Structures are given as C-alpha cells and as structure tokens.
C-alpha cells in the first residue's frame, strides 16, 4: 500500500507528541532524600541487586525491588542486572544457598516503597523518572535506562 504525501504529513503530525513523550521516558536509580548515597557505578548497582554487600560513604547499601510494574521489571532485568528473569532467580538462589546472601527486599506498591526509602537512608531502588520527579521524598542518583 502506497501512502500519499498528505497522509504521510497527517501521520507525522499525529506521531510527534507520542515521540516526544517517549523521549522523556526513563528509569532512574533513587534513594531517600536524606540519604548520603550520591553516586553508584553500574557494577555496584548490579552487586547490590545480587545481594552482595556494597558500602558507600560507610553505608551498607540495601537494594529494594518493586514488582507491581511489569515493564519496569523487564527494564530492570535488562539494564541493571543484565540477566534474564530465570537466570537472575537462579543466581539469587545459588548465592543464597552457597553464601547465605539475602535476596533484595521486594515491595508491591509505590507508597510502601516511598515510606521505606524515607525511613532507611541506606535503601536504593529504581522507578520511572516521572514518579521520582513527582516525589519529594526521593532523590535521583543516576539514569539506569532511557528510551530512545
């Protein structure tokens, strides 16, 4: 099917707002607003989410996951731990059985997550950048993923 120039123009105009919105979509690593954690390398983030002890500014980092957003979890697996879901679960189980490494804390809703970050300055987690911007109780450490 061949599209006429007018149709292409209408299609481009309709697609522009969506593309702009997508361009702003990002996943960021956050901590509590009062936390001393200012910077973390990708390797430390991976370690923390594998349950391995990571210390920053004398604070032992506590990685928190939340599982109420399927897309966010997929991005987390792909860009943060760089593993498939089954491999990540197997790795966590293997570390727990071999070394007693604790699994990352999991929460199931945003309010619970925010409360946890405010109470525990060692906690880090990931969330949509838009949610982080709207929540004064959290502070962005770095960008984990950004839609192109």
């Amino acid at each position, binding site marked *: 099917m061949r599209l006429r120039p007018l149709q292409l123009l209408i299609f481009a105009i309709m697609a522009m707002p969506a593309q702009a919105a997508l361009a702003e979509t990002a996943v960021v690593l956050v901590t509590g607003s009062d936390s001393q954690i200012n910077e973390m390398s990708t390797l430390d983030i991976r370690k923390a989410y594998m349950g391995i002890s990571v210390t920053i500014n004398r604070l032992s980092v506590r990685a928190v996951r939340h599982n109420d957003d399927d897309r966010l979890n997929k991005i987390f697996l792909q*860009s943060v731990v760089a593993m498939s879901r*089954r*491999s990540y679960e197997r790795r966590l189980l293997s570390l727990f059985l071999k070394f007693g490494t604790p699994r990352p804390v999991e929460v199931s809703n945003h309010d619970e997550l925010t409360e946890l970050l405010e109470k525990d300055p060692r906690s880090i987690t990931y969330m949509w950048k838009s949610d982080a911007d709207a929540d004064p109780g959290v502070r962005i450490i770095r960008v984990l993923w950004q839609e192109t």
Partner: protein
Amino acid sequence: MARDLKTISSRMVITVLLIHAVMLPLLSYGMLAVVRNVQEDVFVDSVRIYARVFADILQTNGELPPENEILASLDSSILGGRCIHAALTLGDKLYLSSLMAVTDAENFVEDYEFGEHSDNVYYLSTPLQIGDEVAVLEMGFDELPTLQEIEGARRTIISIMIAYLLVTVLLVVVLSAVLSRPLQRLRHDSRKIASGDYSRQMSTDSDIFEINELSRDLEHMRSTLVGINGRLEAEMASRETAESERRAAETHLRHMHRLQSIGTLAGGVAHEFNNVLLPLLLYTDLALEDLPSDSPVRPHIERVMRLANRAKGLSEQILTFGRRSEDGLKDVADISPVVDEAMSMVRALIPASVGIQTDIRRPVGPLMCDSNEIQQLIVNLCSNAYRAVLKVGGRITIGVASCSVSSEFAAQYVRLDAGEYIRLRVADTGEGMDAATVARIFDPFFTTREVGDGTGLGLSVVHGIVEKHGGEIIVKSELKVGTTVDIYFPESPEAKVIEVEGQ
C-alpha cells in the same frame, strides 16, 4: 479383524501406542521447552552482559572517547560476535557503525524477551552516564543462530522419540510373542484335551513364572479330570455289567418261575393221573390173574396193562420234573462212580460211530444225591447230544470236576452262590440251537423231534432232578457250533464228614 484386535500381541501394541501417543508429545514438548528456555536464557544473558560490559568500557572515567575510537569500538563489537547493530546517541549526535547489517536506525524497538517483535533481532539499549548527560548505547543481536539451534534440537528430539517409539513397539511385539506363544500352546493342548485326547500333557517351556504356574495348574486339573473320567468310565462299565447281570438274572428267574408253574401244573395233573392209573393197573392185573392163559381177550388186557405201565412211567417223569417225587436223597457218595456207571449205559445206547469222550477230574467232591436220578440225568443229556450230532456228525464230551464259583459268576444265576461246586458238563459239537429254542428246552413236552420220536420230557426231567439237588443248569448253544450243558451241584459238607468218619 475384531478377533485379531483381542489378541495379547494386538492389545499390548495398541496399549503401548496409546500410552506413547499421549506421553511422547508431552515429553517432547517438555524437553523442547527446556531446551528453548535454556537457549533463550543463554542468549539473553550473553547479549545483556555483552552490552553492559561494552557500555562500561565506553564509559571509562565518566567520559566518552574521541569519535573515531567510538566508531572503531562500535565496529569491533559487530566484528566480535552476533551483534549486527551498534549505535551510540549523545544528545543530538548519533554514532553508527559502518558494519551494521541493519542500517535503518529508525526501526530500533527495544526487546525484553527473546523473539519479541518477530524481527529475528534482539534490540536493547544501555544508558551511559557522561557527566550530566546520558548517552544511550543501542545494540542489536542476531537471533537466527539461536533459533536454528532450537530448531535443530527440536528435530533431534523428535527423531529420538520416533526411534524410541519404533524400538519400543518392536520390543513389545517380541515380548508379546514370547508371552503369547506358550499361551497359544496351552490353548492348543486344551482343545486337544477337550476333543478327547486326555493323554496330552499340558506343559510349556516358558521362563515366565506366571505362565509356568498356569501350565502346572492346568496340568494338575487335567490329570485330576483324567482320574475322575477314568473312575466314571469304570463305574459306568461296572453299572452296565451289573445291569446286564441283573437283566440276565431276571430273565433266568422268570424262566425258573415259568418252569416252576408248569411243573406245579404238570405235577398236579400227573398226580391225579396216577390216582386214575393205579386202580386201572390193579384191576387190570387182577383181570389178568383171573383170565385163563388161552383167553382170546388176554392179549388185549395185556396191551392195556403195558399201556397203563407206560402211562405210569410218563406220570413219574412228570412228577420228577415237578419235584413231586417223594424219593429223597439217598446216597452220599463220590459222584465219579455214578458217572462211570451212567457212561456204560450211554455207550450201550449210542452207536460206536459217535465219539464219546469223558473227562472226570478226580477226586470229585462228595455230593448228597440220588444216584439213579443222576444217572438218568446223564443218560437224558447224552441222548439229546446224540440226537444233535446225529445229522451233522461230531463228538460228545462228558466232564465232571470240582470247581469254585466266584461271586461275579454266581450273581448271574438264581440258584448259584459263591462257593464250591461239582460241575457236570455234557457238550456236543452238533447242530446247536437258536436262542428261542434254548429258552424253551426245559418246558414239558417241548421237542424239536418228529412227532412220535420223543415225549419232550427228557430235559424237563433233567431240570427237575437238578432242582431237587439244589443245582443250577447253564446251557450255551450256538447254531452249527454245538451245545454245552453245565450243571453245578453244590458240594455237600455233610457228605465230607461222613466220608471222613467212614475212612
């Protein structure tokens, strides 16, 4: 067709096929799922960590290398593996590898699962923190080699399953043959036995315990049935024998009753006839005494006297048959001298051309008897035997012997009991008699001779004498073969005692 489907072999093959028809697809699906998951996980893990490490290398010290190094790194990422798309975006700047197989950067849609979007390319983006800016590394990896490996594994699994199914069916066919062959043999043997071949043993050479046990049990059952069958057959034969003996005894008893009735009637007639004859003889004798010797009526009176005497003789014979003779058993003696004397009389009566053979097996047991009657008995029997051999030739045998009568033999005759007897046998090889004639030979006045050639009282007298002595007559005759008359007299224990005392 339906019968073939009910055989052990068919049932086993069908059962195995049905089980495998359900289980093999499930097993194949499960194995394939495991293989696919493993392959996909390996692919996803490797590309994600590859992208992560590549991004970390580009991002060393929080700064990006010069443009030419960025492009060289992107090219090397494509040269080094399955990566077919490598690009880096920083603000408005876009770095693209010149080796990209997929050149249309607008088509970049990030994947989170293997095979997502069905474009055979796994796209993923990795952000790089460069100061306050965020660069995005875009990479695409070819999924086709992994898809081909999964397809290859699928084919291998299906091939193995088909081979497994074929081997299993083959084994089942062989096993069912091993199982069914001894059963078929047992069935064959069973049919043979059912058709009456009870001697066929039921045995198998199977190594299977249950079949061997079944064979052993069936063989035990067969042997038991054979035993029962044998006993039933023996019992049936015994009952048939007993029945035939009973029928023979009934026939004999009826015959005896008939003879007894005839004897009673004839005896009564003879007795009354005697009462008439005695005055006739007396007065005839007185008349002859009073008649002068030259009287013309004297011959007539003498003829009357002779005829009256003849009538008296007949009357006595009839009385003898009817046991109306008042003479008792006089002698206790060895019967052989009586037989000898009777034989001398017989030889005098019968022409020398007729061969007479005597077989007296001494010592013959003692017998309480009337010697005259025994002699008359022998003479009468020999007279009949002579008549039998007269037309066709032959010989006469007279035998006397002691013998033991068994209970089986005695059961066939009314007057016989098991014990010791003296058997008197008169046999001839003459013309013989048919069964109807034999049945009537003891009837008074029954004769096969010409009219006037006999009174028909000879064997009736014999029968009377034998009954008087408590004996039994057994007549066996066959036309053109001869006749044998056996008379069994019971031995007399009293006679033995007397003889012993006499010695």
